[in-house]
Structure formats: C-alpha cells, structure tokens
C-alpha cells in the first residue's frame, strides 16, 4: 500500500508498504531518518518515541498505515532555524547524553512534558512528575540523574524566557513574573 504523511513538516509518501510494517521501519529504512532508535521493537524502552500528531508514541508500535495523513515529528525535526530546541541544548549542557541510543526518544518525551507544562503556562514540573513521565524511556548508561538535571534546566530556561517575554510585553508585571 501507499502511505502519505507529514514528517518533520515535509510531506512524504512511502510506496509498497507492507501491512505489518511499523512507522519506525518507515522512518528508519525508507525515509532515511534513523534518529528514532530500534532497541526493543515492542514498546518497552521508548527509544523510538516520536510525536504522532500531538501525542508521543512508540513508533515501533504504530503500524505505518495508522500514520497515513497524520503529522509525525521525530528528534530530527525538533531543532529549528534558530538552533537546537531547549531540551536538546539542555541534554548537551547537563551531560545527560552518554551512548546516545536512548537520547532521541527521551528528548521527544521530555519535549512533550515541557510542552504540556511550562509551555502551556503551567508551573515547571517537579522531580516526581519528570521521573514518572520519563519512566517509559529506559537508559542503561546514565542512571537518569543527569537526565533529570537536563529536564530541570530546560524547564527553568523556558520559564525564564517566558517570564522575560511577559516582562517585555507588560513591563509592569516583570517583577511579579520573577
């Protein structure tokens, strides 16, 4: 079958897709996007986490056909013209990257957490919330401490940037924001 979808903002079409083929296979083997990793291929490790429309999913558990007509964003699509996404930058700065194989899925999942919290005008997530939301992304190198550091750092930077932006828009409230 033919499957068309939008991946990282680009419309793509895969031909002769087998009914049992996963979204992960299409991304990695057909579209040249191996950033999403195949480490367990049964949804246990989170290394293949991508956005499907607005939800983070394990791409290994999504049939390619299910992604037809939908929006997919992978780790390759998070950096913008302005540079790295705040989560990517924080993972580098905090030393949250070791072997790098769990990193792409973790970054997408952490990106989702911050989008739903700080980016939505909510408070920065506490440690328990971070650990719980990232519990489906296994890492064998780091022991997760630096990953927590990175998510805290990205959240703090986003909150500070939001406060600064709010301060510029409404100078009278800048002090309150801080």
């Amino acid at each position, binding site marked *: 079958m033919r499957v068309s979808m939008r991946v990282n903002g680009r419309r793509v079409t895969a031909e002769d897709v087998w009914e049992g083929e996963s979204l992960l296979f299409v991304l990695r083997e057909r579209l040249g996007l*191996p950033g999403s990793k195949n480490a367990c291929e049964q949804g246990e*490790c989170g290394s293949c986490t991508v956005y499907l429309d607005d939800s983070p999913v394990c791409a290994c558990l999504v049939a390619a056909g299910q992604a037809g007509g939908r929006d997919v964003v992978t*780790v*390759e699509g*998070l950096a913008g013209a302005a540079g790295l996404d705040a989560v990517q930058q924080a993972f580098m700065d905090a*030393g949250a990257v070791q*072997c790098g*194989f769990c990193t792409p899925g973790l970054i997408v999942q952490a990106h989702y957490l911050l989008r739903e919290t700080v980016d939505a005008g909510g408070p920065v997530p506490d440690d328990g919330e971070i650990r719980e939301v990232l519990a*489906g992304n296994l890492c*064998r190198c780091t022991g997760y401490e630096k990953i927590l550091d990175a998510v805290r750092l990205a959240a703090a930077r986003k909150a500070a940037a939001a406060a600064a932006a709010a301060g510029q828009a409404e100078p009278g409230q800048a002090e309150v924001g801080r």
Partner: protein
Amino acid sequence: MTAMTGTVAAAGTVGASRTRMEGRAKVTGAARYAGEIPFADLAHGWLVASTIARGRVRSVESAPVLAMPGVLAVLHHQNAPRLEEFAGMLGPDPTIQILQNDRVPHVGWPVALVVAETSEQAREAADALVIRYDQEPHDIAFSAQHPGMYTPDDSPLLVTETGKGDIEAGLAASAVVVDEEYTTPEEHHNAMEPHAAMARWDSGRLEVVDSNQGPFAVAQDLAKMFSLDLASVRVRSEHVGGAFGSKGLTRPPVVLAVMAAIVTDRPVRVVLTRRQMFSVVGYRSPTAQRVRLGADTDGRLRAFDHQAASLTSTIHEFVESSAGIGRVMYDADAHHTSHRVVRLDVPTPSWMRAPGEAPGSFALESAIDELAHKCGMDPIALRARNEPAVGPVSGLPFSSRNVLGCFEEGARRFGWADRDPRPGAAREGRWLLGTGTAAATYPARVAPSTAAVTAEADGTFTVRITAVDLGTGARTALTQIAADALEVELDRIQVKIADSDFGQAMIAGGSMGTRSWALAITAAATELRAQLALPGDIPSDGITARSDTAEAIGALARQERHSFGAQFAEVAVDVTTGEVRVRRMLGIFAAGRVVNPLTARSQLIGGMTWGLSMALHEEAIRDQASGAHVNADLAGYHFASNADVPVIEVDWVDDPDTHDPTGIKGLGEIGIVGAAAAIANAVWHATGVRHRDLPIRPDRVLLAGSRGC
C-alpha cells in the same frame, strides 16, 4: 617556525568539566550507529537461532525459503565459508566458530543466516525456515552442589585459587563466625543498542562497520578467521550505543556479515534483536558463593574464606572471578579464595560490568555486614580494623589505598553517625526504613597501546588512536588529555578514534581504556613537541609522532593498583507489598585522577544504578524443560527505570597515584561494586531479615517476613 605548543597555562584542561564533543550529533539524531549507515546495494542478513538446548542439526530446509521474495542466500553449516580456528586476545573462541558444524550447544545458538534484499524479507524468510534437529537431553540446572563442578586451570585472567594458613583452625579459634551462601542470578548487559555489523568488499579490502569495544582486536580476529592480511581488513565503530562488556569481543553478527558479504558479493548488514542478544553476546553467570569469616570479638579477622561457583557453556570456559575481591580487601592469618565452574547446556557467559567484583562484592560485603552485627560493631569500624597494609595475597604494596577516606567522607555526608544500629527500629507508616553501607574496589590495570599525533600546517593537531567511545565520554577525555600534553587549547585538537587503521590499542573495557590511551597519546605528544622544538616549517602533510607504550608498561613497578570506594544506601520496605524502594544512594570513590568530572560523575552514577538494578530487579530466568529463557526481552528482564531511581550522589576524595605517569585509574566499573550489598544491608537494617539471594523481589521480602526470621 613559531612555537606551536605550550600556549596554555599550566592548569590545563584535565580535571575541568567538559560537555561531550559528539553531544550535538547525538541530540539531533545525526549520529550514525553501526546498523544505520547507508550503503549502495545493501543486503540484510537475519540470524536463525536454534530452538533446542543440545543436539545436532539434522537438516536445514532452505529450498522453500530461497523461493521467497527477495531472498538471496541461506547460509548454514553445510555451505557457509569455512573459518580458521585461531587464538585471539584470550585464546581460541568457539563462540564465534559459527555455522561450521552441526553441533547445537544451547538454545539461541546460530544455526543459519538468511540474506535478503530488505531486513523485513530476511526476517520473514528466517521465521519460515524449517530446521530439523536430533535433540539430546540437556542440563541447565545451576547450583554449587552440581556434580559437574570442577576447579578450572589458572588462566591469564584469573588465578583460580589462593591460600595461606589453616582456615578450619582459624574458624575454630574464632569467637565469632559467619558461614553463609549467597547467590546472584543470570544477568544481561542489555546495552540499549543491539549489536549490529555491516561488511563489504571495497577495492579488495574488507570494510566493516561494527558495534564493538575494540575495532583493532575485531580486525585482527576477522583477518585470522577469514585468512586475510590484517592490512586488508578495516573495522570502524564511530558511535557505539553502550556495551558494558557485551561488545568486548568479536561477536556473531560481524562474523555472519562477513560470511554473507563473501557469498553474495554485496554489502550485508546484520542486526540482532533484543531477544537474540540474550543468547549470543555473553552475560553474567549466576553465582553461588560461600563466605566463611572468623573473627575475634573486636572484629579482627582470623579466618577468611570465599568460595565462588559459576557456570560456563559446553564449548568454552569462562569463569566469573567472584572470589578475587577478598585478595585486595581483607587480610587474615588464614586466607583462602577459590573458584569452581560447571559446564551446562547454556550460552557462554562473558565479561559484564565489573566481572567478578560485582557479584563477589555482594556476597563479601553482605558477609562483612553480618560479621559486624554479630560482633556488635559498626560495619565501618569493622572494616577499618581490618585494613591491610599490603596486598593480602600478593604481599605487594598498594600504589594508593584511600578506602577509609571514602568511608569517612561518605559517613559524614550520609549522616551515618546518627544511625540507630538496631534492625527494624525505624518505621514510617507502612514503610520500614533502613540504611546500609559497603566497600568497593576494582583493579586499575593498563595495557599497551599505540597512538599518532600530528601537528598540522594550519596550527591544529590531529590525534589518531583506536579508542572507542561507548558513551563513556572517551572522545572528550582524550581531547582534554591531548590538550594538556601539547599545552594547547582544546579547540585546536581533533581526536579521531574507532578505526582499526589507526593501529593497535587497548579495547574500551576493564576500566583500562582511558589510562591506556592517555599513556599512548601523552607519549606521542611528548615526542611531537620534541620534534617541533627543532627549527623548520611544518610541511603540508604535517609532522607526525607515534608512540607504542608496550615497553613503558612493562617497566611499571609491580604494585597493587586499585580504585576504592564506599557505598551508602537508604531503603524503605513496604510491609504490605514487600516492595523495596531505594530512597537515596551516596558513593564516594578514590579512583585516581579524574579527567572530566562531568562525564566521570555520570559513569559512577550509572554504575551505582546498575547496582540498584542488580539488588532489586535483574534476573534472567530459564525454563528447565526447554533450556530457553522465559523473559528474554525488556518487558520480562527488568532494570531500573527513571521512576525506580532515587537521588544518587557521587563524589571522590583525593587519590594521588604518583607511580603512574597518568595517575588515572578508570571509572567504568567501580560504581557498581558494593552497591547491591549496601542496598541488601539496608534492607536487613530496615526489616531485620537478611536477603542472601538476589534480586530482593517483593515475593522474597514477603515470604521471608512471614517466616519471621
């Protein structure tokens, strides 16, 4: 020529935190691992693993499979290229003599490889391939009492047995005796990246991209196996997604990829599944360890006996060196350590993070805790009372030994002095609370390596060494080391690694990589600086100095060189469910010179998290009837997830080692050593129940509680 080096202040970059050089490539998904590099005309191989534990392959019914879409070849023992039997780094390795005969030594043994145009076609054909076996009865039941247990011969890796004094007399004369058996289960590395390899012929050369810890060693093995000149084999492993020992030796995927490239004359990629990794890349043997300690009432050891049993396969002997740790940690007039092993119809175990020390420290450091309780002593005080002046077995001096400094600093930070030593005394609602401690040690070894450092005409420097960055931060640490050795800024140095064409170097393993490579880079840099001091311009192809550290390492004084540490843990045990939650961990280490504190801390925290996983989660279970695993995936084989891990704090104390030019000891393994014992000791302190079998599962906690022991 102007002075090229010596422009950086003496402080240098070693010892300063640096983010990793390849960080950007990894956070953007741009880093390419061995199974991800595109090649024109690439074909895909899929491993077919045996479904029986012992017997012979009677037939491989290839014909129907060869007619399936895209299938190019089915390799098996009757048609695969013949391999030379050879002695590699550790002697002959039968685990990679695959598809050479009809013998099946365990479930999961490679019996065929299907090669097809796409990996999906290869996989479908592999699933459809019918293999008939003549099955024989198998034995996979491990215990210390197994009648097949034998004492292995000494090897370059392990002296099997050591002894002095009269153990039985020492125990008889002791006021306090501990005599217990401790067991650890079969454990698997489970690096996140499954093993992958690609092989192709390129202008008469065999070019390989492989996920391994030592490309030069793999190139040597492949050259010997396939009867090629070493110069005509090139192996690269630019990015490796974790290894922990499982990629330390040449493994089946790369052998199969080369075979398939020979047969099809195309580039062939072979990638393992998670399930296949449980059978062909090594694992940690289960252990059964008897520890007997005899002491006076003041805690001084009179008798020390550690007997370790482990398993190996029927085709290759690997001995988990669990009893080695007491040869470093504790002395007694009567001192005995020994290893036995049994051959079973299971895959061959191998190195897994802190081989020997990880399971050995669980048994020994639990027993020491039991002895302290029996003596009515604080466990740290008991350890201090038994600090040896020299190596208990070797009699050699320690190059440095700051284990007590670790305990002192750790106790202060952890708040150990406030601890009520009575077990079962602290409770918070349904949670019983406890704290525990344990010592850690791991050898600081070194091995010969070569390196080349080039002064480029544009004022930059290029370092070439067949090191590998498994995620450890090696690439970054070596850049810092080179910057210091050349006394130039970090950004003028490019370190190229993981290419066998750069020549022999130690593999990334045994906590030996950084020290071994640093020695070679420093030697080449020193030689280069001498050349640059001479008058003359740098030619367009630069000036290169090379080093080989074999001689320098041979001249190092014989000493006991080890890292040490002190582990602390606090646990909460749920009396209703039996769940153990670790609330915090602290590790203080004396591990020589720390090159990059940022990545060093990550290595140590990662190791301690392995200890937590070992204490509470990890356990591969085999079905006795089939000989196969029942939990060969990440759903059934548990290691700690983010929500399982508490605050883990790591730091180090000064540990100057003036006897080694680098002062580096290595950090890859020491973090796991003692961590599981600290947690088990904390569980005892919380509940009053001693758990001598890992992992400490909820059912074990509940059953032990209901027995009221």
